[in-house]
C-alpha cells in the first residue's frame, strides 16, 4: 500500500465515522446523556437543601424556637448577640480555631518538609503516626484526651479544646503540605543553588513561596475542621461553649435564630473567599501560560 492509498483509506475511514458510525455509537448514550446530568443535579440539590433551609430560617421572625415559619424579618440579623451565649460561643470558636490552626500549621509543615526532603530511618513509623489520627473515630480521640486530662488532673476549658483541635488538624496539614511539596520541581531549587543562593536563601526565596499555597490551603482546612468540630470538643470542653457545642446543647430547647444568622454569615464569607481564590488562581494560571 502506497502512501497515497493509505491517506485515501484513512480519509475514507474518517468519513465513515463522521456519517454512520457516530450515530450508531451515540444512540445507546442518549439516555445516559440526560441521566447523568439529571442525577448529578438532583444529588447537588439534595446536598444543598439543608443549607438553604438554614439560611432561610435566619430570616424567620421566630419568638423562641426557630422551627415553624412565622414570616420574613431582618431582625435576627441586627440582634444577633441578644441571645445569651451565642456570640460568646462564636468568639470562643474563632479564638480556638485561629490558635489551633497556627499551631497545627507550623508543626505540620515542619513534618511535611522532613518527609518530602529528607531520608531518615523510621519513616514508615512517622507516616503511620500521621495516618492513625485520621483513621481514628473522633469519639475515641475525644474520650482518650478526656481520660488523659482527667488522670492528669487538668481542668477542661479553652486550653484543652485548643490542644485537642491542634492534634486532629496536624495530620491534615501534613498531608496537604506534603502533596504540594512533592509536586514541586526539584530543578527550581537546583537553579537557585546554581545562581549562588545559599541553602537558606534558596529555601526562603524559592521553596517557601512555592509551598505557600499548600500551607495556606492546609491552614484554611484546619480552621474549618476546628470551627465545625463537635464530637472531640464536647468531650474536652468542660463548661466552655464553642459554636457547635452551643447548638448541640440548645437543640433540646430550640435553636435561636441567631445561630442561623452566624452560620449563614460564616457560610457566605467562606464561599466568597473560595470563589475569589479560585478566580485569582484561574487568572494567574492564564497569565503564566506561555503565549500561543
Amino acid at each position, binding site marked *: 500500500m502506497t502512501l497515497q492509498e493509505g491517506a485515501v483509506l484513512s480519509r475514507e475511514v474518517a468519513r465513515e465515522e463522521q456519517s454512520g458510525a457516530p450515530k450508531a455509537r451515540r444512540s445507546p448514550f442518549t439516555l445516559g446523556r440526560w441521566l447523568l446530568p439529571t442525577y448529578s443535579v438532583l444529588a447537588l440539590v439534595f446536598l444543598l437543601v439543608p443549607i438553604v433551609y438554614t439560611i432561610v430560617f435566619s430570616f424567620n421572625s421566630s419568638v423562641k424556637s426557630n422551627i415553624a415559619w412565622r414570616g420574613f424579618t431582618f431582625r435576627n440579623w441586627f440582634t444577633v448577640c441578644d441571645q445569651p451565649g451565642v456570640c460568646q460561643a462564636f468568639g470562643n470558636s474563632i479564638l480556638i480555631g485561629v490558635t489551633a490552626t497556627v499551631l497545627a500549621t507550623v508543626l505540620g509543615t515542619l513534618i511535611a518538609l522532613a518527609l518530602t*526532603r529528607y531520608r531518615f530511618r523510621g519513616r514508615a513509623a512517622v507516616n503511620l503516626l500521621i495516618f492513625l489520627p485520621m483513621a481514628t473515630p473522633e469519639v475515641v480521640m475525644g474520650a482518650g484526651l478526656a481520660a488523659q486530662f482527667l488522670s492528669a488532673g487538668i481542668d477542661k476549658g479553652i486550653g484543652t479544646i485548643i490542644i485537642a483541635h491542634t492534634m486532629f488538624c496536624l495530620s491534615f496539614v501534613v498531608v496537604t503540605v506534603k502533596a504540594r511539596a512533592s509536586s514541586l520541581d526539584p530543578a527550581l531549587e537546583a537553579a537557585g543553588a546554581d545562581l549562588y543562593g545559599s541553602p537558606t536563601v534558596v529555601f526562603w526565596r524559592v521553596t517557601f513561596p512555592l509551598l505557600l499555597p499548600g500551607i495556606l490551603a492546609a491552614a484554611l482546612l484546619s480552621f474549618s475542621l476546628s470551627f465545625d468540630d463537635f464530637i472531640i470538643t464536647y468531650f474536652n470542653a468542660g463548661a466552655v461553649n464553642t459554636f457547635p457545642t452551643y447548638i448541640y446543647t440548645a*437543640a433540646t430547647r430550640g435553636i435561636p435564630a441567631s445561630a442561623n444568622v452566624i452560620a449563614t454569615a460564616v457560610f457566605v464569607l467562606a464561599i466568597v473567599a473560595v470563589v475569589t481564590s479560585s478566580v485569582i488562581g484561574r487568572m494567574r494560571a492564564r497569565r503564566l501560560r506561555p503565549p500561543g
Partner: protein
Amino acid sequence: MAITAFTGAAAPTTNQPTRHGRIAFLLLLPGIAYLVLFFIVPLVSLVITSLEAPSTVYGAYVYGFEWQNYADVIGQYGEQIGRSFLYAVLATVFALLISYPLAYFIGVRMRSKPVLQSFLVILVIAPFFISFLLRTLAWKQILSDEGPVVSALKALSILGPQAHLTGTPFSVVFGLTYNFIPFMCLPIYTTLERLDLRYLEAGSDLYASPAAVFRRVTLPLSLPGVVSGTLLTFIPAAGDYVNASQEFLGGTSSTMIGNVIQSNFLVQLNYPAAAALSILLMAIILVIVGVYVKRSGTEDLL
C-alpha cells in the same frame, strides 16, 4: 483545598528525598512529640482506664486488670456495636451510589467547561462551610411529622397515618449518608479529574461496550479515590453520635456505639465502660480498614 488533603495521601511522591541529616530530626521533633503526647498517650490512658475497677466512691476508679469490663460492655451493648457498623456500611454504600456519578459528571463530563466545573466543586464542598449540626437539625425539621416529606408520603399512602421518619433507623442512616457525601465525593472527583480519557478511548477502540470500559478501565483507575472516600465515610460514620442522638435524627431503637460511649463517659461517669467501648470500636475499625485496604490493593495509601 480540602480536595488535596483527602487524596494527598494517595498521591505518589515524585521527587525522592535526596538529603539526610540531623535537620530532618529537628523538623520532625516538635510535631511528632505533640502527636505522641496528645494522640498516643491518650490511647494508652484509654487502655488503662478500660481496665480499671470501680472504687467505693461514685465516679472514681482504681487501677486494675478488670478484663471483665470488656465482656460486660460487649454483653450489655452488643446490639449498639453491631448496629453502628451496619449503619456505617449502609451509609457508606448509599454515599458511594450518590457520589460516584456526581464525581464522574463533574470530573469527566465537565472537563470541557472548567469554569462550570470549579463552580460545581464549590457546591460539593459548600456543606463544609456551614455547621453540620445545623444541617442535621434542618433535616430533622424537614423530615419531622409536620414537615413536607412526611405529609407527602402520607398523602401518597407510602407511610401509614401513625408513621414517623425522625427517630427511626431510616433517618439515622439518611443523616449519616447526607453528612458524608462531600467526604466521599471529593476524593473520587480528584482521581476522576486526573483520569486520562485516552484510556477510555482505547477501551472502546478495542470494541469494549461502555459498561465494559467503565468496569475494566474507569473503575479500577478511580479505585484509590473510592478507597479513600469510603474510609473517610465509614470510619467517622461508625463512631458518630450526632445523627443517632435523640435530639437530632435518632430514637431509642437506633442508638449507636458513639452515643453509648458519650453517655457512659459524660453522663454516667462510667469511664471504664466508655474506655473499653472506645478501644473495641477502634480495634474493630482498624481490622476492617486493614483488610479492606489490603484487598483493594491500595496499600500505598497508608
